[in-house]
């Protein structure tokens, strides 16, 4: 065993590099000391753990190799797998090297086979005493010393370069020279903003002789508001963001964009990644959570939802919680957490139970939509409201004068004619009201007066379940008020009617017992022959109560209990209102009474009844006016006349903006393990918790919640989050991650190519306060980033994947950015940031195959907005984006493919959006001053598109192309220039970041 001679290497680095570069000879590889976590564990996990790993159910021969004790102990055969230092006594070595088919491991029919190198490594490991250790990714990163490089081959921009150069020196490879300035500014602009630099900016940068010209450019681009769009879009891939719910109905999510806007804004404000995390996973649980922090929880509202009629709602809810669990694991921990949904993870230390402990955080979560009007909508609403109020006041004045005349004797006369209800009602104060339709189940909140306003578009077959605390002795009945506001109707049918099919109630006492309340009678203040009140209690949901002909007033129905019942303190009352035909109630409120039977259905508001209870002399003037107003409204002809225009006016009250943010809220639920991943097969109950292999979770209360989980993820003690995030960011700037398997930091993943650099960056990220911008600044100012991406002959052979970073990587642009460079280079781009998604024109046949066919085409300047604003409908992906490998938003997309296909060629050549770009640029060329030569025009377009002038050969080729096209176009110069633009915009370089 030789040790590496670093001194020698350093001294002779230069000559070795030259030899390596010429490919004539290469220095013999120096065996590095074995590192268990890096060298041995991945072999064991990949090849052995399936049968000899953490999963008890799959274990063969009673042997487990994922623990030290297991490896050193005896299996079922009695033989010992690993005897340190003795390969002959180690059954593991004997079996993996066995020539016999029935003995050899892994078995002959296994998918994996050990390579000669792996066999040698395992043998050497046993020889070296079989040292054990932990897997690198589960150990916290430690900050390594920055290597010192003598005679570096390229400038050391920052510590990144020291690590990279040290590694290259080991491999006898030289780094590549820096890219030229035009390439650099184009690369940097595309990487940081997703937009190409304009010509003037390129020229200014090329001429900028200040020593920190590059750093200044970096800062300018980091400050650009388009930075948030570019890096926000990267994040949206992880968030599986889309504008529809998927599955059969693919229901649109018209306000999903609020979350996209939040992301863009948070990235632009450089919200530190720890806060960025906490707000998205648990913004709703933060003390005094702001609307913005709640909108951030939209991250997990991007799960798919199956609202197909007849679908299993509980299954779908549980699948959404599984998705949220798996996505959280993939995005923050880089682990394939989802593998443990059905069984203990085959490779990583994550048990089936631990999966459901994580799941429990998301199981105890519900979905809400909260009003979130945009500032422009709000301003518009307030303007309309002010106008409306002014008109209301104008109409009110004569009424008010008239009402004043009714105070006193006229009211008293009316009052004298009244019979007064004996009972008094206590209004229920519900916590939540669940709206259940065939397609959906959602939870809503009551109004301040404890009434509930149903959804304007709730279908006729909707059930409302009201959950309310209740405490009273000897309750005799319940009352339901079907409220009609002035100018409004009591029901949502077009006629203003409703049909309450069934009314039922259940009392849950503090001991957990559930008692169905039995009603004897239902009585309404008004009913029709065909739809009487009693129909609500007969168990037949085709019969019920309606108010046909009297829809513009509040009506009341009372339900008498068969016998009085106590509601002990701490009880919950659940009342269910089932609708079936005609329409649902518009707004309703519930109350209980202990009054004597029979109960009176009295539509007069409680407030009025309370005033009537007072002797006239004791009433305030406001109370007296309230009584007079009631008289004017219902019992006084002149009053009714004055009220009529007011009622019409109330019907025209401006609506509050509908924009509502999809967010998460806490909703306690018990979690049981789903045996084999099936929710209908519940196993043990589990509490929220995190995997034992990672540092312990700190919880604020008796039961951990999402906020605890989020804070645990971004605790610097967590070995994964900073590493995983640094890797995501690195990948976008260098083409691949330092851990190439960006989606897997587990045992089946690849080890980091530069472990010390990786840990340096992970610790540095935390030290920089989790600042995305500062980390990116560090990365892009390195000499490593600035290298040329030319594929050197030696690298093509030695390192085609560019693992060693001896050059930059040349990358095709992402789908959205392909669109952006077209629009930007032709001058069509609309740079407005944020807001609702756009619908660029689509051929009808693309939409025709889906069930959701509406596509309100965007016109005018809006249609030239950036690719990230295109409406993403899961079942009908926008063809151009799909063709260029955009994420399909079904799962978190941690790494996009970069395919290269004929359909891409057809898209760039003939997609109407791009054709318009060719034309626009071509016509600009044709319209340049008459004395401009064709060559100059072509060179101008070339520079506009590629940020560099053409070479002589390129210029000549373009000229030949132009001449030929001019001839083919029979002298149509405009068409020939469009053809030239079409040529340049179809070059590989145009859609590539070099």
């Amino acid at each position: 065993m030789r040790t590496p001679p670093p001194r020698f290497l350093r001294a002779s680095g230069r000559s070795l590099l030259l030899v390596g570069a010429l490919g004539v000879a290469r220095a013999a590889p120096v065996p590095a000391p074995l590192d268990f976590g890096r060298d041995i564990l991945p072999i064991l996990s990949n090849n052995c753990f399936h049968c000899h790993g953490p999963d008890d159910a799959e274990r063969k021969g009673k042997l487990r190799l994922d623990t030290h004790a297991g490896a050193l102990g005896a299996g079922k055969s009695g033989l010992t797998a690993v005897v340190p230092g003795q390969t002959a006594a180690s059954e593991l070595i004997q079996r993996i090297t066995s020539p016999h088919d029935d003995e050899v491991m892994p078995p002959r029919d296994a998918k994996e086979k050990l390579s000669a190198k792996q066999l040698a490594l395992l043998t050497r490991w046993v020889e070296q005493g079989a040292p054990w250790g932990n897997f690198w990714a589960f150990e916290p990163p430690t900050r390594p010393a920055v290597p010192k490089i003598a005679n570096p081959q390229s400038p050391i921009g920052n510590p990144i370069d020291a690590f990279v150069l040290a590694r290259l020196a080991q491999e006898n490879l030289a780094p590549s020279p820096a890219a030229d300035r035009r390439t650099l500014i184009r690369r940097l602009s595309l990487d940081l903003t997703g937009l190409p630099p304009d010509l003037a900016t390129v020229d200014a940068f090329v001429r900028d002789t200040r020593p920190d010209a590059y750093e200044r450019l970096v800062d300018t681009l980091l400050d650009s508001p388009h930075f948030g769009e570019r890096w926000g879009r990267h994040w949206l891939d992880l968030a599986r963001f889309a504008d529809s719910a998927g599955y059969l109905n693919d229901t649109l999510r018209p306000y999903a964009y609020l979350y996209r806007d939040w992301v863009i804004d948070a990235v632009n404000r450089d919200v530190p990644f720890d806060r960025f995390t906490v707000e998205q996973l648990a913004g709703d649980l933060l003390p005094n959570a702001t609307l913005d922090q709640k909108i951030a929880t939209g991250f997990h509202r991007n799960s798919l939802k199956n609202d197909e009629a007849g679908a299993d709602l509980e299954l779908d809810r549980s699948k959404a919680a599984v998705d949220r669990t798996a996505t959280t694991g993939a995005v923050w921990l880089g682990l394939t957490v989802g593998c443990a949904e059905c069984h203990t993870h085959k490779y990583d230390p994550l048990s089936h139970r631990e999966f459901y402990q994580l799941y429990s955080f998301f199981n105890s979560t519900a979905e809400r939509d909260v009003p979130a009007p945009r500032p422009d909508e709000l301003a518009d609403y307030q303007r309309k409201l002010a106008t409306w109020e002014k008109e209301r006041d104008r109409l009110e004045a004569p009424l008010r004068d008239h009402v004043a005349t009714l105070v006193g004797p006229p009211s008293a006369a009316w009052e004298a004619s009244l019979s007064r209800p004996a009972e008094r009602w206590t209004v229920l104060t519900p916590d939540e009201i669940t709206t259940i339709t065939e397609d959906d189940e959602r939870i809503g909140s009551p109004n301040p007066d404890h009434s509930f306003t149903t959804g304007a578009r709730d279908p006729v077959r909707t059930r409302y379940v009201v959950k309310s605390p209740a405490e009273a002795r000897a309750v005799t009945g319940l009352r339901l008020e079907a409220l009609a506001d002035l100018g409004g109707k009591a029901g949502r049918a077009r006629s203003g009617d409703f049909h309450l099919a069934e009314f039922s109630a259940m009392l849950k006492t503090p001991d957990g017992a559930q008692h169905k309340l039995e009603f004897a009678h239902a009585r309404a203040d008004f009913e029709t022959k065909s739809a009487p009140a009693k129909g609500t209690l007969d168990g037949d949901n085709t019969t019920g109560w309606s108010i046909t002909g009297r829809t513009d007033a509040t009506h009341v129905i009372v339900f008498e209990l068969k016998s009085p019942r106590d509601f002990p303190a701490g009880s919950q009352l659940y009342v269910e209102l089932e609708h079936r035909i005609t329409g649902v109630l518009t707004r309703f409120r519930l109350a209980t009474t202990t009054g004597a039977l029979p109960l009176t259905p009295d539509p007069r508001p409680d407030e009025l009844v309370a005033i009537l209870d007072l002797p006239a002399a004791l009433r305030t003037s406001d109370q007296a006016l309230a009584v007079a107003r009631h008289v004017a409204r219902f019992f006084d002809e002149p009053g009714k006349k004055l009220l009529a225009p007011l009622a019409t006016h109330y019907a025209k009250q401006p609506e509050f903006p509908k924009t509502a943010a999809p967010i998460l809220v806490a909703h306690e639920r018990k979690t049981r393990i789903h045996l084999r991943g099936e929710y209908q097969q519940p196993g043990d109950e589990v509490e929220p918790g995190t995997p034992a292999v990672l540092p312990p979770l700190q919880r604020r209360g008796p039961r951990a919640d999402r906020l605890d989980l989020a804070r645990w993820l971004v605790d610097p003690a967590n070995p994964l989050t900073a590493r995983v995030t640094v890797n995501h960011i690195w990948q976008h700037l260098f083409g691949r991650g330092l851990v190439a398997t960006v989606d897997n930091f587990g045992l089946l993943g690849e080890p980091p190519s530069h472990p010390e650099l990786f840990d340096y960056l992970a610790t540095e990220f935390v030290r920089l306060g989790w600042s995305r911008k500062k980390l990116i600044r560090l990365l892009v100012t390195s000499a490593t980033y600035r290298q040329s991406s030319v594929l050197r002959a030696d690298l093509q052979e030695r390192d085609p994947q560019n693992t060693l970073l001896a050059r930059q990587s040349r990358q095709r642009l992402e789908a959205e950015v392909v669109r952006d460079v077209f629009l930007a280079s032709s001058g069509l781009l609309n740079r407005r940031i944020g807001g609702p998604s756009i619908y660029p024109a689509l051929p009808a046949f693309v939409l025709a195959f889906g069930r959701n066919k509406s596509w309100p085409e965007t016109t005018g300047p809006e249609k030239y907005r950036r690719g990230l604003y295109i409406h993403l409908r899961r079942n009908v992906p926008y063809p151009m984006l799909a063709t260029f490998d955009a994420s399909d938003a079904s799962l978190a997309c941690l790494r996009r493919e970069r395919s290269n296909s004929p359909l891409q060629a057809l898209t760039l050549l003939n997609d109407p959006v791009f054709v318009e770009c060719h034309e626009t640029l071509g016509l600009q060329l044709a319209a340049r001053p008459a004395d401009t030569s064709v060559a100059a025009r072509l060179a101008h377009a070339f520079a506009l598109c590629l940020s560099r002038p053409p070479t002589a050969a390129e210029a000549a080729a373009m000229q030949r192309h132009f001449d030929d096209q001019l001839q083919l176009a029979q002298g149509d110069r405009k068409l020939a220039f469009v053809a030239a633009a079409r040529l340049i915009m179809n070059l590989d370089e145009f859609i590539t970041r070099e």
Partner: protein
Amino acid sequence: MHDSVSFSSRRKFLMQACGGVGGLALSHLLGQDGLLAAPASAGGVVRPGRTHHQARAKNIIYIYLEGGPSQMDLYDPKPVLNQLDGQALPESMLKNMRFAFLAKESARIMGTPRTFKKHGQCGMELSDLLPHIGSIADDICLVRSMHTDQFNHVPGQLLMNTGSAISGRPSMGSWLSYGLGSGGKNLPEFVVLICVGRGVPGGSASWASGFLPSKYSGVMFRNEGAPVLNLDNPSGFTAAMQGRNIRGVAELNALRHAEVRDPEIDSRIAAYELAFRMQSAAPELMDLSGESQATLDLYGVNRTEPKIEGGNQLGGTGLFGTFARNCLMARRLVERGTRVVQVIHASWDHHSRINTDLPHNCLMADQPIAALVKDLKQRGMLEDTLVICGSEFGRTALGENRPGQRAVTGRDHHPNAFSLWLAGGGIKGGQVVGETDDIAWNVTKDPIHVHDLHATILHQFGFDHTKLTYRFQGRDYRLTDVHGHVVKKLLA
């Protein structure tokens, strides 16, 4: 990782053999060999054109009748059904059953007006709605014992077409194109032909490539005009100008390649050439003038469609011609090198009006489907072309009494037992596999799960379904997840 390395060294070998720089011959060679567009970044394992064993099938035409056609009205004769008409099912058979719509407490068995007759030498019993398919009975293998896990359309379709009820997995066609890895011809490898009718609930998920590179995705062809999106040049651009443009792009790209030496540029050049070839191949494909009148009549391309009272609620009307043309187009595609064709029609989801809408759908589909099998056979193409006709599940023996519905005129979704058939591509025709109980409720013999069907299909293409994998998010995914057995009974 292992395979990626050998892949890149293969490409490297080709590069060297061809002299390196951006030659068109090189890109052509790469294209034909299926090496184009392999992901340059780390990720899944690409196995271009490498099978695990001798393939029996080279092509697949997959006719997908969306919605769940009724097996007891088409494929699985159940005389007992009419005797039990109007009776309830025993509680034991309903326990643990879940339905999309029907109320199981009050549902009653519904008989069928259909009559069944024996066909072919094998004596396969088929419904009076399928006379033409009856005429190919000796070529098809009818499976009466299919079963699935899903009773809603989208999850059912996802399972049937992607092997998983969860969105985001590659479709079966994508797995096949990935495994076959040929490409480089004049038409896409995987083409989807749709007869829209009511619309396909799962949208493009049934032919999408999921986490596989997008080039393995099915390409939806339009039924008229230019079949592929963006196939037509902008107005004013003649074919000659387009050709000159493609040449110019190649020329300038080659110059850039000489500078930066990125092999992706070669792929780009080849992709443009292929796109250009596709521009002339696709219109040729769509042009039926070369087909004989006999062939057109066989498929019934110009049939007149009978009127249906109240219109066809689900399958749509006016589609007789389109469906027939799509079946013919499937053969023409396979002839021209496309390996995977999916012919889709929606819908067969007969919750109501089953006795008017189902016959109409059958009248549309029966003749062209049978014609396709006959035509393939005549031309000697059936041997290596696997034809499948199926859906995501079957229908209930119980009539659907969905609350609020006025009359019981249809059947609900039924995952426990359903029928489909296969032909060609090494499948043993003239046989019926599997049996169900007296009311086609449960499978009583030779159950075949969707995963088993997938395993068998891959097997016919020379793939071991446990070994055709792609690594994504740290896991080796396969079409059959962790399930599936090749059903030897189906094979010749």
